[in-house]
Structures are given as C-alpha cells and as structure tokens.
C-alpha cells in the first residue's frame, strides 16, 4: 500500500516527536482519552482482568470435578462457579476481546483514518463496559448467580434466589457498550476510508469487524430487551415468561438465542479477521481467494441470524421447525469451510515463517476445524437429542471459542504487540507459552468429547466413578492451560517494560499500519492521510523480518 501523494490541507505534523503512548502521561489523559488507540489499551486491561477472573472460576469447578463425589464444594456453589465463568467469559471477555482491543486500535488505521467516526461514543463504550463490570463484581460480592449464563426462565425468574437482577443488568450494560463499538465500526468503514481504498482493497480484518458490527447492531438489542423482561418479571413479580403465570418459557429461549447464537459469530468473526492477516504475512503469499473470504464473512453474519433454533431441538419446538433450523445450521458450515480452505491454500506454496503469531494461527486452524466439525454433529437433529446438554457440547463450544477465538486473540495480540506497545516480546517465551496453551487445551477438552459422548451431562458437580479418568485428564489439562495463559500474559507484560524496541515493520508485513505508521503510532495516526494504490496482501515473497 504505497503512499504516492500527500493530500491538500494535510494535517500539520506535531512539534514534538512523540507517539500516542508518551505524548501525555497524566491519568486524566488516559481515562478521558478520545484516541481510539488509547481506548484499545484501556479495553485490553479491562478484559484481561475479567479473563483472569473467569479463569479462576473455571479452575475452581475443575478442582471439584477431580473426584466423582461432590465433595469440595456443595452443589449450589458449583452452580455459581460455572455460571460466573460463563457470564464473565462470554459478556466480558469473548464479545469485546478482538473488536474492542485490536479492532479499536486497527480499524481506523487500516482504513486510513485518524480516528473512529465517533471518538466520544467510543470512550463512552469503555465506560459503560466498566459500569457493567462493576455490576458483575457486585454479583460476586452479593453471593453470585446460579442460573447458568443462559438465564433460562422459569429458573431465573421464579426459582433462583441469587443475584439474577444484577447479573442481567451487567450483561445488558456490556451489550450496550458493544453496540456503541459496532455502530462506530460500520460508520468508519463506510465513510472514512482513505482515497484509493476501495472495498476490495480493504484488509480482511476490516471485513470481519464490519460484519461483526452488523451482527452486534441487529442482535444485541434483542437480548437487551429479553434480559430487561427477566429483570421486570423478577422485580414486579408478574408472569412474562413463567408458564405457571401464563407466560411462555420457550418464547424466552427464542428471544435469548436470537441474539446469543449470532453472538458466537460476534465472538469468532473478528478472530477470522486476525487469522486472515497473519496467515498471508507469514506465508509471504497473497491470500487465496480474497473475495470468497470477504463474502463468506458476510454470509456467516447473515446466516447466523437464522440458526438459533438449533439450541431448542429438545425444548418443545415443533419437529418441522427443528428440521429447518437443522438444515440452515448445516448450511453455515459452508462459508466457514471456505475460509479454512482458503487459509490452507494460502499456506500452500508460501514461504512459511514460524513466528509466535503464526504458531497460534496454525493452532487456530486445526482446533477450530475440530470445533466446527463437531458442530455439525450437534446440528444433526437426531444426534443432538442424546448429545444435548452433555460435555460434548461443552467441548464443541470450547474448541470454537478457546481453541478458535482465544487462540486468534493471542495470535493477534502477539502480531500487533510491536505496533501497539512499540516493544518486541521475547520470541522463545512466546512460542513456549503457545505450545503450553495448545497442549493444555487439547488435554482439557479432548476428554470432554469422549465423556460427553458417553453421556456425562454438563452442569453437574458429581458423576459416576467410571468417568473419573477422563475428568482427571481434563482437570490436569486445565491446570496446564491456566499456566500457559499466565506465562503468555506475563511474557507480554514483561516485554511492555523491558522488551527490545520494535522497528516500524518488524514482520515485513503489508498494510497501512505497518507501512505508514510508526511503532507505536503517532497520536493522530498519520502525518498526512495516505493514498492507497494497491490491493491488500501484495506479498512478493521477498519481504524480510526486521528484528534486532
């Protein structure tokens, strides 16, 4: 992406040679910043805290599952642990993970703009997210919540005597903050692209975040009103969803999954975008089938709104409704497979360089494929009946969300770390943590496929003795996985302070953020708005790493 000319009225360069991190050190300049790059860093700190918190709950219930008897924690407490794990990981880590951090940082730079269209709304998004986080912490101090992250009625509305109200308020507010981010992305991509940056010259990361924005905008309000109705039903003591009072609890499931199934695409689509950047860069190859990846992103976003009923095959939905949802769910595997194939063909014939981000990206392709294929098992209506609510579903979901999304998130964080922080992370430690995470992950969740296939239901704190071996493997894997995440985060934090300074383009990558922006970027990104003359990923195979 060459810069051929400065536009008229170019932005005056700053007097001081500073970057966005160093131009002002005051606390106020961080907490009330309107700079999309600083907001990305703020979000990164917030979601890391929640990621660790969610991980602690996972470790607690894995300890309980070491032994068949429910002996470490009583059933009530166990229910609270898996609920809090789910609520925190989904609403406070997975949904904001890539869009709010990498997306916030990169979307304006990649489209050649100085900021997102609405910087104040972007800042408001982070504040609303933190208000939501305070509600989530209030849930913890008021004794937790035990309905599962799905808040199914009538359990959540009539029977649970835990902090359901605070928990749905937290999810409501977190959803609102994601809507603000989504709208910002859509407007920025539509209206603020640099001259010459046509839709089909956009990096695929932008397509992914654009599609994510659309899903957020159309899906999140529906869950917002659904959670609002749950809160009203609890506070007012009337029956909206409780069948005993004339309500319809299946209606709740429809309204909940109308958002919460598309929400998994909110979580995974930005991850696809990250992988689409890293694979061509470290294959030194143009991406295979650019338009197919771009349109598969959009078709996943659209199809994702028509598959929610596959969560309700055994909830009393009619047989024919189930068949339609089953068919549509199978259908969504097609665009996903298109992506996997295209990434693989990009690797083919490329000059593959195994850096840490590439290692995560390759791991992503393998794990996500397993997660996707097992999704087809569950989409088959007949097979879903025995597998519904077993550990098979848990393993499938974690293969797509941890094996997929978390791997993509860490791939992206490592890839753009030199750009965001201006420091190189230690390569050996990065790879070491990646391999630990990969090993621990497989050891945790592979046995869960088997134990789920054997019939172990999810959300129980006790189980028959013959499943102990598999559960011990899973808990051992979770410990390794937890260690891997800590090693990875520690390595990144260490490098932020003591790492080697990064060059402008350490990976020899293509893209405005590498070719035009300094590391870390200037507070206003560009001294003059670039003019784009090439398509994305115009790798020639001759790019070199530029690392000391």
């Amino acid at each position: 992406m060459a810069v051929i000319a400065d536009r008229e009225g170019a932005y005056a360069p700053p007097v001081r040679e500073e970057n966005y991190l160093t131009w002002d050190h005051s606390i106020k300049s961080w907490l009330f910043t309107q700079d999309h790059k600083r907001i990305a860093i703020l979000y990164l700190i917030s979601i890391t805290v929640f990621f660790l918190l969610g991980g602690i709950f996972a470790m607690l219930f894995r300890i309980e599952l070491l032994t068949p008897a429910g002996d470490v924690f009583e059933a009530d407490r166990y229910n609270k642990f898996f609920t809090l794990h789910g609520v925190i990981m989904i609403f406070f880590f997975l949904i904001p993970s890539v869009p709010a951090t990498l997306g916030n940082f990169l979307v304006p730079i990649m489209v050649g703009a100085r900021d997102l269209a609405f910087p104040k709304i972007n800042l408001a998004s982070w504040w609303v997210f933190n208000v939501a986080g305070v509600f989530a912490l209030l849930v913890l101090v008021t004794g937790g919540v035990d309905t599962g992250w799905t808040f199914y009625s009538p359990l959540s509305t009539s029977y649970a005597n835990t902090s359901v109200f605070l928990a749905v308020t937290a999810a409501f507010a977190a959803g609102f903050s994601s809507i603000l981010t989504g709208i910002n992305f859509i407007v920025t991509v539509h209206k603020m692209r640099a001259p010459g940056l046509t839709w089909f010259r956009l990096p695929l990361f932008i397509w992914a975040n654009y599609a994510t924005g659309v899903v957020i905008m159309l899906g999140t309000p529906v869950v917002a009103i659904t959670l609002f109705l749950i809160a009203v039903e609890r506070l007012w003591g009337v029956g909206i969803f409780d069948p005993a009072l004339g309500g319809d609890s299946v209606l709740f499931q429809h309204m909940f999954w109308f958002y919460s199934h598309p929400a998994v695409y909110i979580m995974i689509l930005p991850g696809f975008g990250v992988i689409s950047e890293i694979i061509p860069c470290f294959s030194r190859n143009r991406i295979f089938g650019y338009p197919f990846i771009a349109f598969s992103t959009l078709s996943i976003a659209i199809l994702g709104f028509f598959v929610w009923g596959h969560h309700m095959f055994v909830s009393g939905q009619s047989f024919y409704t189930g068949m339609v949802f089953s068919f549509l769910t199978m259908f969504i595997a097609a665009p996903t497979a298109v992506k996997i194939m295209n990434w693989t063909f990009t690797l083919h014939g490329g000059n593959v360089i195994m850096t840490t981000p590439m290692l995560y990206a390759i791991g992503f392709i393998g794990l996500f494929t397993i997660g996707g294929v097992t999704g087809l098992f569950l989409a088959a209506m007949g097979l879903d009946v025995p597998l519904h609510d077993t550990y098979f579903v848990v393993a499938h979901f974690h293969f797509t969300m941890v094996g997929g999304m978390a791997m993509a998130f860490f791939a992206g964080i490592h890839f753009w770390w030199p750009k965001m922080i201006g420091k190189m992370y230690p390569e050996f430690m990065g790879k070491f943590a990646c391999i630990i995470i990969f090993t621990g992950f497989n050891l945790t969740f592979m046995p869960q496929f088997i134990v789920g296939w054997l019939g172990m239901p999810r959300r129980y704190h006790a189980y028959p003795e013959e499943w102990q071996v598999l559960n011990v493997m899973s808990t051992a894997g979770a410990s390794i996985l937890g260690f891997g995440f800590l090693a990875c985060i520690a390595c990144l934090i260490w490098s932020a302070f003591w790492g080697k300074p990064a060059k402008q383009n350490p990976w020899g990558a293509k893209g405005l953020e590498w070719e035009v922006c300094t590391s870390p970027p200037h507070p206003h990104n560009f001294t003059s708005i670039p003019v784009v003359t090439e398509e994305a990923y115009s790798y020639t195979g001759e790019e070199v790493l530029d690392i000391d």
Partner: protein
Amino acid sequence: MTSVTMGPAEPVIPHHFETKPQHNECNILGMWLFLAQEIMFFGGLFTAYAVYRFKYPDAWEAGSAELNRAIGTGNTIVLLVSSLTMALSVYFAQTDQFKKLVASFSLTMVFGAIFLIVKAFEYHEKYTHGLIPGAWWDPIHPPEIDDPSKMQLFFIMYFIMTGMHAFHMVIGLIIAAVMMIMMLKRKFGPNKYMPVEMFGFYWHFVDIVWVFLFPMVYLI
C-alpha cells in the same frame, strides 16, 4: 460566506474528518444505525406481544376494551404535531431563523410533555380500576372470558411497551432541555444544525414507535 446570526460563522470540522460533508454523513449514518438497533429492541417486545396475542385472543380483546380510546387518539395527535414542529425546527436552524427555531422547538417540548402528562393520568386510571398486574391486580368488573388472569399478560405488555416508549420520551425531553439551553446561547445555526437534525431523527423515531403501539394496544 454570508454572516449568520446564530451558530459558528464557519463550519467546524473535527480533527479526524477531512470534509464537512463527510462529518455530516457519518452523523446521519450513525444515527440510522442507532435507530436500527432501537427497532430491534422494540422488535423483541412486539414479538412477545404477538405471541401472547395469538395465544390468548380473548384476554387481549377484553384488555384492549379497558383502554380509553379517546385519550389514546388525542395523545397520538399531540405526538404527531410535535413531530411537525420538530421538522420545522431543523428547517429553521438551517435557514438561520432564531426566533422561529426557539418557538418551534419549545412547542415540540411542550407537546412531548403534554403526551407524558396525559399518559400519567391514563396510568393512574388503570390503577384506580385495579388493572395494574401483580399485587394490585383487582379488576372491578372481571370480564367474561375463559381465564381472566390471562388479562394480566395484556396489561403487563401494555405497561412495558408504553412504559418503554414513555421512557424514550423522557430521555428525549432531557436531551431537548439541554439543547434548548444551547439553542438560547445561539450554539446552533446554518453551520451547525446537525445536533438539531440528529435529535429530530430520534424524536421522529419515538413518534413512529407510538404510531405502531397505538393501534396494537388500543384499536385491534
């Protein structure tokens, strides 16, 4: 550029935009997207309404008959007139007519307030008739339907839907009050009318929600 009596003398472009039209287009697209998510938000309520109406048609008919159609119609007219004055406000801001702008925007606020006051009286009437679901539920004349308790569901949906609409009106009036102060300080004018136009988008949207709510709860 001719001198203007209100608002900035020249268009102000925030640092991250290149041109004024780009700035305006971003605002308009952003507002449309916000309204799209609002439609999905109310859409959830409309879906629940439709499902329960389908399940309990008798209860719905009996519940709807308890509402005061004359007041509902009057309130609809009040709200539609407020939309007209809102549209005029945008025009007066663009064409630099200070007095007319203040007058028409004030009228918009007054009509909005009238709507809410009437709505409050309607709610109170429901209370005196024992039509508040939950602990106060005690209709004086239980209608002759299979299961009178299902009529509660109608009133739950009635209060949540009109309540959510009224909540949007309250938010609108708060924003309008802030804008009124800025307007009197002559902050808006031909070179800065976007805030007025954005508020107009929101106000019209809230009116349109009512245009759908009114027949759904009062008429059919």
